[in-house]
C-alpha cells in the first residue's frame, strides 16, 4: 500500500534501499550522508529489513566489501560523500569492469581544502571516468524513485554496470519534503529478485578481477565503453516501465521544462533545476521565451538527446556547481563537446560553489547574460555568479 511521508533526502534513500530488499550494506559514516546509514541500521534493528550491515574501517574498505558482496551475487548498497568517495576512488574502478551492479548514494559535498561540508559536485564529477553510471536528482521524491530505478538499470542484462545516485548535500539530504512511498508488493513486481549474470559460485569456480595483460585489457575497456552505450536505452526503458508502475516519469537521460518554443535554454543539474523552474516561470510571465534542460545523467552522457533538445536555440547556458580549475566547469566541457560544430553560442555559468545559496536572482542573472548574447551582443563564455570581486 502506498503511503505519504515527510522525509529528508537521506531518509528517502534509506526507504528506497529497504523497498529494493538490499541484502548487504557495507558502510562508513560521513557528513552529510551518515543519516542514510543510521536509518538503515534502524530498519535492520526493527526487523523491517533483512540485510547484512557491515561497518567498515574506511570508505576504501566499504567499497571493497561491496565488491566482494556483489561478486557473490547479492544486491548491494553503500553510501558516501566527498572525501569518502575520494577514498573509494581506487576501488571504484573495479565494479564496472567486473560488471557488478552496485548502487552507491553519493551525497554531494565539496572536497578540501577548505573542508566544507556543503554541496559542490567536485566529489562525483571527479569519478566521471570510473565507468559508473551517474544520475543527479532534484527532489526527494526523485531520490526515492531513482533508487528503485537504479537497481533495475544496473542489473539489466544489457548493461550490468554500477550506478551512483548523486543528491545535493543538505539541500536534499537534510530537507524534509513530501514523499510518496510505493507499496512493497508493487516494488517487488517492478524489481524482481536479483538474478546475477556474473558471480562467484562454489559449484562453478572461477577467478574474478585477475591481473589483465596488455593482450586483453583493451578489449575489456572497449567492452565497458559499449556497455555504457547500451545503458542509454536501458535508462529510457526503465523510466517508461517505472511510469507504468507508479505514474511518475523523469524523462530518462534528460528532462525539459518549457522548452517547446524557447529561444534561450539553460542546462541545469541537481537542485538547481528546481529553483531554475521558478526563475523560468518568472521570466515566462514577463514574456521571455526561456526554458530549462534538466541534465539527469552525467554517465552515460546524453550527447544525442542534448543535440535534439537544443535545436534552434539562440543561446544556451550551462550551470556548473564545480570547477575544473581550467576555465570551464565539467558539465560545460561535456555539453560543448556534444554540441560541437552546431555554431550555437554556449556559455558556462558557475554558481553555488561550496554550498553558497543558489538564488532565483542568480539564475535570472544567467538568463540575462544569455539574452544579451542571443540578441547579438558580445559576452564572455564563462561567468561566476555570486562571486565577490571583478571577474
Amino acid at each position, binding site marked *: 500500500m502506498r503511503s505519504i511521508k515527510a522525509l529528508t533526502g537521506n531518509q528517502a534513500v534509506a526507504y528506497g534501499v529497504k523497498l529494493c530488499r538490499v541484502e548487504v550494506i557495507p558502510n562508513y559514516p560521513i557528513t552529510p550522508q551518515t543519516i542514510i546509514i543510521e536509518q538503515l541500521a534502524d530498519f535492520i534493528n526493527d526487523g523491517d529489513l533483512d540485510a547484512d550491515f557491515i561497518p567498515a574501517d574506511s570508505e576504501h574498505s566499504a567499497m571493497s566489501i561491496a565488491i566482494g558482496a556483489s561478486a557473490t551475487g547479492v544486491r548491494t548498497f553503500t553510501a558516501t560523500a566527498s572525501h569518502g568517495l575520494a577514498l573509494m576512488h581506487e576501488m571504484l574502478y573495479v565494479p564496472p569492469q567486473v560488471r557488478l551492479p552496485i548502487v552507491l548514494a553519493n551525497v554531494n559535498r565539496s572536497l578540501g581544502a577548505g573542508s566544507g561540508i556543503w554541496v559542490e559536485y567536485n566529489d562525483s564529477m571527479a569519478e566521471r571516468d570510473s565507468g559508473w553510471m551517474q544520475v543527479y536528482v532534484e527532489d526527494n521524491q526523485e531520490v526515492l524513485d531513482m533508487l528503485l530505478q537504479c537497481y533495475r538499470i544496473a542489473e539489466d542484462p544489457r548493461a550490468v554496470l554500477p550506478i551512483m545516485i548523486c543528491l545535493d548535500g543538505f539541500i536534499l539530504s537534510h530537507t*524534509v519534503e513530501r514523499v510518496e512511498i510505493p507499496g512493497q508488493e508493487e516494488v517487488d513486481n517492478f524489481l524482481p529478485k536479483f538474478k546475477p549474470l556474473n558471480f562467484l559460485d562454489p559449484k562453478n569456480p572461477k577467478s574474478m578481477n585477475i591481473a589483465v595483460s596488455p593482450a586483453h585489457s583493451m578489449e575489456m575497456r572497449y567492452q565497458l565503453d559499449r556497455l555504457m552505450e547500451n545503458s542509454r536505452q536501458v535508462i529510457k526503458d526503465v523510466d517508461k516501465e517505472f511510469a507504468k508502475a507508479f505514474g511518475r516519469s523523469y524523462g530518462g537521460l534528460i528532462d525539459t521544462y518549457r522548452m517547446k518554443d524557447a529561444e534561450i535554454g539553460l542546462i541545469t543539474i541537481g537542485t538547481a533545476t528546481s529553483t531554475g523552474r521558478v526563475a523560468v516561470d518568472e521570466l515566462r510571465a514577463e514574456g521571455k521565451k526561456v526554458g530549462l534542460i534538466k541534465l539527469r545523467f552525467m554517465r552515460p552522457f546524453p550527447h544525442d538527446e542534448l543535440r535534439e533538445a537544443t535545436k534552434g536555440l539562440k543561446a544556451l547556458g550551462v550551470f556548473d556547481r564545480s570547477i575544473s580549475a581550467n576555465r570551464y566547469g565539467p558539465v560545460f566541457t561535456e555539453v560543448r563537446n556534444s554540441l560541437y560544430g552546431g555554431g550555437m553560442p554556449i556559455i558556462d555559468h558557475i554558481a553555488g560553489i561550496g554550498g553558497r545559496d*543558489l538564488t532565483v536572482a542568480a539564475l535570472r542573472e544567467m538568463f540575462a547574460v544569455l539574452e544579451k548574447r542571443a540578441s547579438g551582443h558580445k559576452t564572455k563564455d564563462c561567468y561566476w555568479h555570486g562571486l565577490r*570581486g*571583478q571577474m
Partner: protein
Amino acid sequence: MYEIRFHGRGGQGAVMAAQTIAEAAILEGKQAQAFPYFGAERRGAPVMAFARIDDERICIKTQVYEPDMLVIMDESLLDIEPVAAGLKKEGCAVINSRSAPGDLDLGLEVRCISVDATSVAIEMLKAPIVNTAILGAMVKANDFVRLESVQQAIINRFGEKLGEKAGRINAEAAKIAFDRSQEGVCRGKRPLIKKRLWLPTWQETPPGVALGKEERVGMKVGPGSMSQNLTGTWGTSNPLYDQDKCIRCQRCWFICPEGCIIRKEDDLMEFDLRYCKGCGMCVKVCPKGAITILKKGVKQ
C-alpha cells in the same frame, strides 16, 4: 506559498519544529518543505530553520529571506541577531516570551503572538525544550494548518523517537501554548542588529583563507569567528571569582575548556566572560571555593 523562518538556540528544537509543521501540512494533503540552516549546530548557539507550505509543488530550494512568519524561540536572540530582517510587513511574529506583544520590541511593527513557551515546556516536559509549545502558538497566529494536524505530527515525529507517552505529552504542550497565546502588535523601535561580516573579494582572500594569529582580521573569518561569535551568550550562568580566597594554584586556568581564564603577571586570574559558557569546571576544581557559579539575570 507560506514561508516561515525559525530562530532558536541549539537544543531548543528549532529544526524539529520546522519539520513538524511541514509534516502537519503534509498530513493535510498540502506540499511542504523544512530544513535547517546548513552548518554545524552547537547547544546554546543561535540557529535557524526554515519551512515552506503550499498547495502546489514547491520548487524553490533557497533559504527563506522574506518570511511570512517569524518564529523566535528565545527572546535574548533579539539582542545578538538581526532576527526580524526581511519579515514581510503583512506577516507575523511568534515569540517565546513572558511579555505581552505590545510590550515587545522586535524592530518591526507587525502582528505578534507571544507565549511563555518556556514555562509550558518546563511544566509539561520538565525541560526548557520549547519547540512543541511554540508550534501551538504558531497555529494560533495563522490557521494555515489545524491544531489537530500539528498534534498528530508531534505524536508521529516525537513518538517515533521518544516513545508514545512523550509524543502525547508534547502534543498536549502545543495545545496548552495555543490556549495561552496572546495576540497583539509588537513595537518596531529597536534598530536591527548589523553583523560586521568579513566578506573579502577574491583578490583580497588570503591563500587557503589562512591567516596568521597576529592578523586581527583572522578573528573575523568563518562560522567560528571570535569577533562575531560571543560564545558567552550561549550559556545560562557565569562564574564569580573571589580574588581574596585565591591561592594561585592555576587549576582553573588549566582546566577551562574555552581559554576564558587569563593568568595575570601576579598569577591571579582574570575571567573573560564574553566567551564563558558557564560550564562550571573552574568551580569544581577550585580547592578553596574561590569561584562560585551564578545564574545569569538573577540578583544575588
